[in-house]
Each structure stands twice: as C-alpha cells, then as structure tokens.
C-alpha cells in the first residue's frame, strides 16, 4: 500500500485542463524524473510551479504543478498535481510517463481509500469508500478485459507461452543440472528469443487500435471537388480561419492541416485540393496527392455539393472509399437541391458550413464510427489502455535489460530474471498471474524424476 499511485483525476473533456494526481512516498522523486524546471525536492510545500513535462529531451507539455508534502494533504502522503493543457493525448502521455517511472495506476477510489486509511476522512465517508471499491472493481475489471480485445490478448498469451517455454527450460537446467538429456538453453538461443519477443511486442503495440487512437489520433482527410466547401468545413471544425476560403475553384492548392478534438479524442484532419481533371500543373500535384491521402487515411470525409449533380469523378471517389471508414457530407443545404441519389451505403450528413448547421451531426457520426462514445463515458477503459501501454513499455525496458545482460556475458540464469519479468508484466495485462503456472509448465514439459 505504500507504493506511489497516479491517475487522471478530472473528467475527460474538450479544452478542459486535466489534473493528474500522484500520491505516495516517491511522488516527488518520480515526478522529478519527467520534470524540467526547478528541482522539486528543494521546493517548499503547498506551492505552484511552472515548468515542462519531458520524455528524455522531448518536451511533452507545458504545465503548472502543485507540490504538497505530507502530512497536510488529502491522502496524508506526498501529493503532486499536474495541470495539463494538452488535451487527452498529452495528458495520457504524462500519465504513461509516470507509470513507466515507477507509479502504479490508482485503483478506483484509491485516493479516497488512502485518505481514510491515513485518518484523513471519517467512518461515515469510509462506508461510502467500501461500496465504491466493491462496485467499481467489477466494472473496471470487466472493462479492462473488454478493452484488451480478444485478438490482442490472444497475441499476448501466445507471446507469454513462447517466453515461458524458454524460462521453464532455463529453470529446469537450474533445478536438474545433472540431466544431460535435457537441452541446455544457450546464449544464442536467447538472442533469437529476444529478437522474436521484440518483434511480437511491437506487433502487439501496433495492433492495439485503441491505444493508437489515443496516442496519435485518427487520420482524417476531407476530399471533394473544388469549391465544394472542404475548407469551410475544416474551419468550422477547427473553429478558426486556417484554410483560405474563396468562391474560386481550386483555391486550396496546398494541403491544409489541423488537429481537432472531439470529446478529447484527437482527429488529425487534412484538407485537400479539389478533385477535378485539371490542366493546371500546380493543382494537378495537389489532386494526385489527395487520392494518395485517401489510401492512407483512417477516415474519409467526402464532401458533395447539394446544388450540383454528381460528376463522374465523384462516382469514382465513391467507389474508391467503398471499403474505408467514410462519411458522405452534403454541403450547401442552404442552396436548392440539384444532387441526384447518391449510390452509397455510407452515412450521409447534410449540412451548411456557411451557416454552421449540421456540424454537431457530423461530430456525432465520427464518434459513432470509432466507438468513441465508450472512450468518452467509461474513463476506466481509457485508463486500462494506458495501463496496458505502460506495462508493454515496461516489458520493453525489461527486454533492454535482457539484451544488456547478454551483451555483458552475464550467466543465463541472471538474464532469465529479466526475461521472467517480461512474462510477468504481460501476464498483468491479460490478468494471468497464476503463480503455479511456471511450476506446472516445468513438470509437463520436461521429464524429470528419481
């Protein structure tokens, strides 16, 4: 119970300041590791500091940080609160850094629980804490399981199996050294094993879609023929004038980019030049590039003009985006309808960018498409994903230790300690922490006895 815990203690929302709270005896030491500013150890209690959260040399966020030393804090432990401005992706990154540097993700209600255990709140409140713990635990457990999708947890399980085969072999070599007929794991085998683990870990991390959405955002392209209102839509979503908007077709020659946030989830939007057969060399580059962008995009917003009939190019685009996540936007609903029936199974949103009508429908549709509803309302699923990522990163770190051990010619049973650690960390993601597992493996895999 004396370990140091961290969690995002504010609800996740757009534009709001997020507070990350850290409590425990190592709160100051751990935060110092990712803090660029005055040395936290030397700062007086109950003060607010300005500085940066860093990952090595990279600046992650500009923050205000409150430092509160025990015992005059909510939990009666050392507490640090970081006010982050960067939206969900940044906040999540800060949390992740804390977890990697030694914090444990707080359980539901754990700050309150500590407050109680340390005599900060009274018995009546404590009854509430009991209910909180028991109610929220099952919920978060269920969510943790649903969050690690079947596919990914299967991959993790397979990787663990591969690791435990080697680990069990090494331990058998230790416990039954006189058995000459049992293969002895060599450093070279271990090297191969490390390469495989590294590849698998990377694979698992990249397949973890939710984590990608949280970390990097969703790549969105807006396409449509010139002057259909792509830039206006982007500007509406951005709520600022970033793209130049005129009535002359092909005004947006350069690709204009912007990051928008829908309920805390990052959308990385690219506004492209209009799609149209063109003789203009400059513009032609823009057009072919926009077709490439469709290929790369995770979401295509295809804008049509309510006031014009479908062109052959537009039909071609409809065909191109058939198998991609896409939303058809019919703009300029303020003008008379001349558009024919659109041959598509995609959702169609009608809006008028100029009058700022229908944009909420668009946001809702995007959320629906990426199941963002769940991320928004169930912060535990989001947290468990941060937890998985941090455990995967810790597994990476342990793998580095394995490599270092091999390079330094350390005995294989020493190197194995870190290898076993990877197996344990992955087990924490899938919830497999059955302690007898290894021993069972030992005796089922190898033939030993008197």
């Amino acid at each position, binding site marked *: 119970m004396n370990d140091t815990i961290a969690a995002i203690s504010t609800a996740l929302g757009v534009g709001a300041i997020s507070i990350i709270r850290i409590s425990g005896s190592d709160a100051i030491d751990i935060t110092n590791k990712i803090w660029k500013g005055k040395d936290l150890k030397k700062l007086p209690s109950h003060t607010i500091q300005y500085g940066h959260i860093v990952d090595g040399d990279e600046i992650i966020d500009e923050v205000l940080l409150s430092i509160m030393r025990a015992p005059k804090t909510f939990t009666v432990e050392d507490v640090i609160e970081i006010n982050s401005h960067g939206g969900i992706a940044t906040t999540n990154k800060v949390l992740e850094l804390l977890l990697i540097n030694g914090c444990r993700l707080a359980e539901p209600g754990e700050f309150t629980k500590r407050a109680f255990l340390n005599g900060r709140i009274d018995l009546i409140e404590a009854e509430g804490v009991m209910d909180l713990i028991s109610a929220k635990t099952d919920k978060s457990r269920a969510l943790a399981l649903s969050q690690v999708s079947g596919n990914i947890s299967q991959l993790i399980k397979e990787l663990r199996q591969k690791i435990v085969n080697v680990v069990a072999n090494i331990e058998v070599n*230790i416990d039954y050294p006189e058995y000459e007929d049992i293969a002895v794991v060599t450093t070279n085998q271990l090297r191969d094993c490390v390469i495989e683990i590294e590849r698998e870990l990377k694979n698992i991390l990249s397949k973890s879609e939710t984590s990608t959405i949280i970390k990097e955002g969703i790549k969105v392209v807006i396409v449509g023929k010139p002057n259909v209102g792509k830039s206006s839509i982007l500007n509406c979503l951005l709520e600022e004038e970033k793209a130049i908007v005129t009535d002359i077709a092909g005004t947006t020659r350069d690709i204009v980019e912007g990051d928008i946030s829908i309920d805390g989830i990052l959308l990385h939007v690219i506004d492209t030049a209009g799609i149209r057969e063109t003789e203009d060399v400059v513009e032609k580059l823009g057009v072919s590039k926009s077709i490439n962008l469709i290929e790369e995009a995770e979401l295509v917003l295809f804008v049509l003009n309510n006031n014009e009939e479908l062109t052959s190019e537009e039909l071609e685009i409809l065909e191109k985006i058939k198998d991609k996540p896409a939303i058809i936007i019919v703009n300029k609903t303020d003008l008379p309808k001349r558009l024919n029936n659109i041959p598509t199974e995609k959702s169609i949103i009608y809006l008028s960018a100029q009058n700022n009508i229908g944009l909420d429908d668009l946001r809702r549709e995007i959320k629906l498409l990426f199941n963002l509803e769940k991320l928004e309302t169930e912060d535990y699923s989001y947290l468990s994903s941060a937890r998985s990522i941090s455990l995967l990163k810790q597994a990476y770190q342990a793998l580095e230790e394995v490599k270092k051990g091999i390079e330094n010619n350390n005995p294989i049973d020493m190197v194995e300690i870190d290898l076993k650690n990877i197996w344990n960390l992955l087990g924490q993601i899938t919830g497999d922490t059955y302690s007898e597992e290894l021993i069972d493996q030992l005796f089922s895999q190898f033939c030993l006895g008197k």
Partner: protein
Amino acid sequence: MYEIIVVGGGHAGCEAALASARKGHKTLLITGNINNIADMPCNPSIGGSAKGIVVREIDALGGEMGRNADKSLLQIKMLNSAKGPAVQALRAQADKITYPKNMFKTLRNTKNLEIREALVEDLIIDDRTVHGVILEDGEQITSSIVILTTGTYLKADILVGDTRTRQGPHGEKPSNHLSDKLGEYGFNIIRLKTGTPQRIDKSSIDYTKTKEEKGDNHYWTFSFDNEIHYKIEDQISCHLIYTQPETHKIIRENLNKSSMYGGLDDIKGVGPRYCPSIEDKVVRFADKEKHQLFLEPESLYYDDIYIQGFSTSMPRDIQEKMVHSLPGLENAKILKYAYAIEYDAIDCRQLKQSLETKVIKNLYTAGQINGTSGYEEAACQGLMAGINASLSLEGKDPLILKRNEAYIGVLIDDLVTKGVIDPYRLLTSRAEYRLLLRHDNADIRLRDYGYEIGLVSQERYDKFLLKKEQINHLFEYLKSNKLTPTSEVQEYLKTIPTTELKDGISLYDFLKRPEIKFKHIEHFYPILESDEVKDTVEIYIKYEGYIAKALKEAEKMIDLDNKKIPKDINYDKIHNLASEAKQKLKMIQPTSIGQALRISGVNPADISLIMVYLKKEYHYES
C-alpha cells in the same frame, strides 16, 4: 513429564529433538526403531539445487544436517558451477550407514535428550491442547509440547504390482490409528504417494558400459564450520546409463500390472510431479527414446547400488526384466525391489507459520506429515518446529523466516498459504528472490538468528563476525586501491584478455568486468582473505545491479508482510468480500496482508476491503 516430545526419528525428528534439547528443554524422542534413526530410505544423497542451500541455512541456524553430511560423504559436487552464483548448490552422495550412525551419536551425546523405542497411536488432548502421547500399549507420557515428525509411517502401504501391504519402509510397522485420531481432532487427512527404485548388487554390474561421474576436484563442506572429513581422491563415483527401447517395450506391454496403472484400483495417493515413476515417464513422454538413469553408491559398508530415475511399482518379475534390459545390468542381481508407498498426511494449511497446528494448541508437525518430500525439506521443518516449540516454552515469539530471507521461509510460507496436492519439493523456481538466497550468504542471512536463539555457540559466532569484518575490509580495500594504465598493466590486460584501461580504475570497478576474477587482481595486489570471503565480495560487486533490483522488489513484499492481521478478525463482518476469498481466508487465517495476497483466489480488491475494515474496527495503522 517432559517439556517436549518428538514423535519420529527421521531427519525432521532429529533436528527438532536436537534444537529443543540444545536449548535446554527436557526432550524425549520416540521412534519405532532406534536402528532407523536418521535413515535415508530413498536416495543416498543430501543437497541438490535449492536443497543444498537449505542445508547451508540449517547449518547457519545451528542445525545438524550440514555437519552430519560433511562427516558422511562419499562424493560431493557444486552444481551449476558454470551458471550464476544464485543457483549454485552442493549435492553430495552420503553414506547410508555412516550418516545415521553419526547422527545417532550426536543425539546420544546431547544433554536433556532421551530416546525411546515405541509406537505412538494417540495424543493426550484436553480442551484442544495437547498434553502428551499415548503409546500402542496404552502407556501415557506427558509433555508440554508434542512435535509430530512421522514421515511416511501414517497408515503406510507398500505397493508392488497388485499387492498392497500395510507397512513402512524396510518392512517397519506403521502407525495405524494416529492419523484417524488426528482426523477426529479436526485435521483434514490427505493421502500421498511416493516411490523408490531397486537396489542392485554392485558386483553384478558391468561398469564398462556406463559413463563415470566423479566428484569435484575441490574441497567443499555444507557446514560453515568448514571441517573436511574426506579426501578428494577417495570420492566414490556415480555412473550414468540410459534406458533402452527394450526397456520401454517391457514397460508398455506390462503397464496394466503396475500398481499405479491398474494393478491396484484403490489408490488414492497423489504422487509427486517432480518425481514420476519410470512407467509415468514412458507414458507421459512417449516420444522420448531414452531416459537418463544414475547408478549411485549407497555405502562403503555394503554393496547396494541405487538406480536413480527408475522408481516403479511393477511386480517383481517385470522389474527383473526391466533391470536386465539396461546396459551393464544384463546380469544384475536385484537386492531390493522397487516399490511405491502410500501414506497419510495432514492439510498443511491447518498450520501456523511457526508450524504449530491451528487445530490443537502446543502440537507441532514437520516433514512428510506436512506433505513435503525430501530429507532437506524435512530437516529444516524439524529444526523450525524445534526452535519455535522451545521459544513458545520460553514465552517468546516464534522465529518466522521471510521469503526473502531463506528457502526455509519460502517452503513454510508455501505450505501454510497454498497447501499441497502432491508431495512438495523445493525448487529454485519457487523463490521470487533466488538472487538473495544464495549458497554463499546463508550465514550472513541467518547466523544472527541462530546465535540469538542459542543454537550457535559463541565460538562459531565469533568466527562468523570475523568473516563479516573481512568482507567489509575487502570491499574497502577494492574501493581504495586503483589500477593505472601503465604499460605493464595494459600488457597484462591484453593477455586476460580484457579491454585496456583509458584512465585509472578502482579495483572495485575493475572486478565488475565479467571476465575479471580475483586472480587477475592478485597479479598486482595481494589479497589475503579466504576464498569464501572473496566469493561473496565478487558476487556482490559483479551482480550489484541485479541484487539491487531484487532487494527493491523484496522491500515491497516486506512492507505487506509487516501489515499484520489480528487473530480475532471476523471475515463475515467485511461487506462485499468475495465468497471464495472469505472461505479461503477463514481456512488459512493469514497473519499478514502480504500472506493474504499470496492466497490463490484472494484478489487485490478483497485486500483493499480488509485494509479498510481493519482501520475501522481496529484503528489499525497502515
């Protein structure tokens, strides 16, 4: 009237009786046959991976097994010497005549200890407290404390082929009623099984068809007394052979005749996973063409050779065929047939960490009755039961070793927290912090306890303090002396070979290099300390990073183990506790939050609820 009665004269019983008597308590050791005291009915060996370290731990605490083994060696080896220091352990072939004889001599020469030959069939119980034992003929002997170390003798059945005979090893009389009585008193009785292979007449073996396995060309002792009782060149070899296709064929064709495979249909005992019979191996690992067998000498005083790896419960005629199919054993004469043995044990989750039972006050149990297997596992429990029984008489707290302090701690915590299904053997894989539980540092971990308890003499303790001083001195010496990159130094480094120096480097940092040993440093600086001291220092320096990591991990566990759960806690009063957790917690009665967390089926949310409850009801400081 005795203070302590120990029932059983095996490895657990001997240690228990010695600890109790040496601590000045009037002790009676009751055994079914005085000639079988400290008998080794199975392997003629002491030690092995993890187990060898346990023998060192017993010695550090002031137990007898290590010293006794040192006096009785046929051969000794350091296992895993090519691997890291955390997994090195001694394994010895011990003489089956000399070992018991030496132990018996020690028992006879111990003050306050009486030995009596008798069979115990019941306990004197009043108000859930034991007051002595009742012998087969009804005689009652009273005592304040009873320690049961009955081994495999509770309702022992010897199984060979389709025959079941109610007897213990060597055809000894088993105890027929004691386990039923224990059941009546509230113990859950479980049935376990183990086995032993044939003994072969040495003169009938053709050793030309075997591979010789010699002892180490280095003097070793289990005990920190470091007294050498043998000569390297006089060590007796073991011999390695493999099973043949014909052996496997005989086993497959006669499988239904094995007691365990249908020869007997009333077998309830669960056999050890780590120690399967040869028929088990042939069935479970059908794709393996051969299995390794060791021919091990039992004694200098008789000709029996033990076939390690060949335990079976086949009928005798099939055993003849099996043995004769082995290389070098074509004409072997079987002196004793292999057998399996079934016996009663208690559910070790009914024990406290002190090895006192939760069911009956002042009753302690140790060894195979607790579901373990192995001489070393038995001996260390006997020692701890003897120590804790004595401490209880003295009105002191029991000595509970933590999982990061000793394999003994791992073993006892596993027993009382997780229970056993098959006979429990210690393995390095059972220890979370094997890097801390090394062969070389058993005294550093445990000598102080042994001295405080009074089992380690002043003389032996002074010797230990001197060693500690030398270790510290050597650390300082290595830190304060330097190697500088002179041409002489660089030339020598090339010959090792190791990277040449850029700047001066402390000997301490120089020793961190994997390829550097003390002999390289001694090329420039004299080191006067003993090999023992040098080993410990080198391990600390070379593996500093790994050790630091293990210590940090262990600290977390210690924190949780230091959070005590009061004895009178009522788990029914804790709302929302999962029912599986509640049932397990009530049964096991963990003494600390750490132990509770190690119970399978108790999860962190349950632990949180317990913590909150403790704070509320007991104003418990977390």
